[in-house]
């Protein structure tokens, strides 16, 4: 059942005539989603000499330790400065407290090169100006530590938008350069980053930089000869900030599945004038491997219906991959935000009859899910066990942001994430 579109067919998809307008169900009600702070979970693993200091409440600290069970890292590169009652009494006091907290932290962790002051719901509501605090503290700690700020608050960001806000804060720090180059934007697992680096090298595309990079010291240059690919679908503001610095976005499918990865690489190859034959020669082997890996799951996943609750904004590219390369049937695909521009290529490949929804009223969406009774439901951890108890098979969406899923070599792993819950259901006899 594997449907592989040959790479040439995806060429310049964005130049095609606009697909017919889709009806998108937009809902506002209870949203069962994480706030932007949660993206620190992978950002702090990715940027090895950066530290994330959340200025927030006990709730923020509790979220961080509960959301992903990250307590295995005895001393992670994030912490919460908990605002207390006496801090709320007067603003002068709270800035002084923040200075002291940062001093204490940097004393404990001398290896930190980049410190993010991360705004939260309470810090935003009391209008604590972390931008000014970052400037003030920078004067003290430059050049040893760079201090930036962004907001990961739930009132402004949903889950992966926290990464968007973080990277946006880094863009003004990027050194200007007129040299031609490619920037891959969006945190990727190191193993995936290395695979893409090798492919770009084989294609003769370079220099290639990754934002965020593993070390804060690894500067990513930007200018009007910079082209950038988005590796993740949640980077609206980062893309805009890069464009303001003169960089040019290369629209493409997102690198999920063989088709997505090929189209994504092809966008760069075309922009850098890589000959067709060379592109095919470089991608042929990994493409074939990906097809083989996907073949193992075709029987399990073909014709199975999928319902996606909104979570990371990966839902649309995932749905495209699962329907086109594994033959799954899409019922509803929910996303916290629908960025029509970045999603144009993706949407063009989705079947017309899929219900797209943006935002959430969780009780109404649960009603729809129960009515559809999909073979598999992609949802957050708060909903998964209750739905399993109702006899529905689920896949927790958070795994998709913690697991390497992009690129050719991960196609099989990505399919397996969806196949396993279905296989389990057929095997368990209790």
């Amino acid at each position: 059942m594997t449907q592989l579109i040959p790479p040439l067919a995806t060429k310049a998809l964005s130049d095609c005539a606009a697909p017919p307008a889709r009806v998108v169900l937009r809902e506002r009600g209870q949203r069962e989603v994480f706030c932007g702070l949660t993206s620190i979970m992978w950002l702090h693993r990715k940027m090895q000499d950066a530290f994330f200091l959340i200025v927030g409440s006990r709730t923020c600290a509790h979220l961080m330790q509960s959301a992903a069970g990250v307590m295995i890292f005895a001393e992670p590169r994030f912490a919460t400065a908990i605002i207390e009652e006496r801090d709320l009494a007067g603003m002068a006091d709270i800035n002084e407290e923040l200075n002291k907290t940062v001093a204490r932290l940097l004393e404990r962790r001398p290896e930190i090169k980049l410190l993010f002051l991360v705004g939260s719901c309470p810090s935003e509501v009391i209008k604590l100006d972390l931008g000014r605090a970052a400037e003030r503290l920078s004067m003290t700690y430059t050049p040893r530590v760079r201090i930036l700020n962004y907001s990961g608050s739930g009132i402004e960001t949903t889950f992966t938008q926290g990464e968007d806000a973080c990277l946006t804060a880094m863009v003004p720090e990027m050194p200007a350069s007129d040299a031609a180059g490619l920037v891959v934007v969006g945190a990727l697992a190191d193993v995936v980053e290395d695979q893409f680096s090798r492919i770009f090298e084989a294609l003769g595309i370079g220099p290639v930089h990754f934002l965020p990079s593993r070390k804060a010291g690894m500067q990513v240059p930007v200018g009007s000869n910079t082209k950038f690919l988005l590796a993740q679908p949640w980077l609206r503001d980062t893309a805009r900030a890069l464009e303001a610095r003169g960089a040019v976005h290369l629209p493409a499918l997102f690198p999920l599945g063989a088709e997505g990865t090929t189209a994504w690489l092809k966008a760069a190859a075309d922009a850098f004038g890589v000959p067709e034959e060379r592109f095919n020669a470089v991608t042929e082997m990994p493409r074939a491997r990906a097809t083989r890996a996907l073949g193992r799951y075709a029987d399990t996943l073909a014709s199975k219906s999928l319902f996606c609750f909104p979570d990371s904004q990966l839902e649309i590219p995932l749905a495209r991959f699962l329907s086109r390369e594994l033959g799954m049937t899409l019922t509803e695909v929910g996303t916290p935000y629908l960025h029509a521009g970045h999603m144009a290529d993706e949407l063009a490949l989705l079947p017309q009859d899929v219900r797209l929804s943006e935002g959430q009223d969780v009780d109404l969406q649960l009603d729809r899910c129960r009515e559809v009774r999909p073979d598999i439901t992609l949802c957050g951890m708060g909903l998964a066990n209750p739905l399993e108890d109702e006899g529905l098979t689920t896949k927790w969406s958070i795994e998709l942001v913690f697991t390497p899923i992009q690129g050719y070599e991960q196609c099989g792993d990505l399919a397996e994430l969806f196949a396993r819950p279905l296989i389990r259901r057929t095997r368990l006899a209790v």
Partner: protein
Amino acid sequence: MQLTVWTYEGPPHIGAMRIATAMEGLHYVLHAPQGDTYADLLFTMIERRAKRPPVTYTTFEARDLGSDTAEIFKSAARGAYERFQPQAMIVGASCTAELIQDDPGGLTKALDLPIPVIALELPSYSKKENWGASETFYRLVRGLATEQPKGAPNRLTRPICNVLGPTALGFRHRDDVREITGLLFQLGIDVNVVAPLGATPHDLTRLPAADFNVSLYPEIADVAVRFLEKEFGQPYTKTIPIGVGATNDFIIEVCGLAGIEVPDLSAFASNMPWWSRSVDSNYLTGKRVFIFGDGTHALAAARVASDELAFTVVGLGCYNREFARPVREAATELGLEALITDDYLEVEAAIERLQPELILGTQMERHIAKRLGIPCAVISAPVHVQDFPARYAPQMGFEGANVLFDTWVHPLIMGLEEHLLGMFREDFEFNDTAGASHLGGHGAADKLSDLASVAAEGGEGVAAVLHWAPEAENELKKIPFFVRGKARRNTEAFARDKHLETITLETLYDAKASYGR
């Protein structure tokens, strides 16, 4: 402003959720920004609950702040009532909503819902999870309990009590309730209501029908049972039945409150006393144990550890200041200074300094123990998915005492095994760098010794780097690995004390003589 990485307690509205989720027919409408819904996964993932917590969040966003968040709250409360049809509702705010001062209580009152609505004031910037749970339970009891004829209507001959305190996400609350209600039944005492776990708002109205209350977890129930005593004249239990001795004391206490004769205590069987007295348990005697948890569980563990396992308690503390006083008193009796802190780094420092052979703590201490290669058993919340076992594993009552013996002793090396380790330590196949099997066998053996050296070097600020003579170093390797760290640390401290630069074979044995075991 407090700098923290891991916290022992969540914010107070999480405590309120633990009450709401424990109960049936109660709904919680929480004014909270988008993202606070993470709390659902505590219950659905950690506790593996098959139902969503009965909580409706308003999940307002920045753009709502400029318009009307109060209207969002009202429509959420109205919607929740219509959809879930609860017997009663609690309403309140999380930390962010507290700042915007929308007054959930007043707003819900204006809706004029045909059910009791209890407004919660849980100050997020000064209080924590246990306080929030306790306050919520008290508000519910105060708001719902109504005067009842005393005694059970159809079983007038048997005394009757309530069992109060168990919640959702509690440490073994599910199994403790089963164990203790079973014990009460055996004693001839009926249970009127167990709350909040499994109770409905309607059940809470019937609380005053009981003769007395069993306060199972003072962290949750203390304020409520004091209120019930004052308002309805119900006395309550002070003994927490953890361990054989405390369970016996508990039986005596409840029989007193119930006005029945205390039965022959030897009729209640627990394996624990014999397990502790059997010869293999000689190796437990004097094991140095560090105890940290919530006040109630830490106190109980200290008694069991010293009186029922003959351990030596070398450290005792709790993270909830509300229970600091009794923990301080118990520590003083043991000749210790209690560690009262909610900063896990302080706890870690105390453990590194004391080098215990066993840690009885929370999930936090489990992580510290893992890092330091010290055996550990969990005795208290905060909890982890592992603390919700599939099997029946109470902490309380006589079966609970059996569970304590097993879970505290299994991380240690068994007595016989300890001798064998001594006998075969020179065996070429018995390579101690392979690590201890009971710790997963991942070469954990040398962590202690590494740690000891690091701590010794960093601790004193003494410039002199101690040199180990090769024959002393070799001799050290002959000491079983599980005490080698301590031997190294003691020897180095001894050498530093004597201003020695080189540790010889003589120094090693001089130190051994001066420290004893």
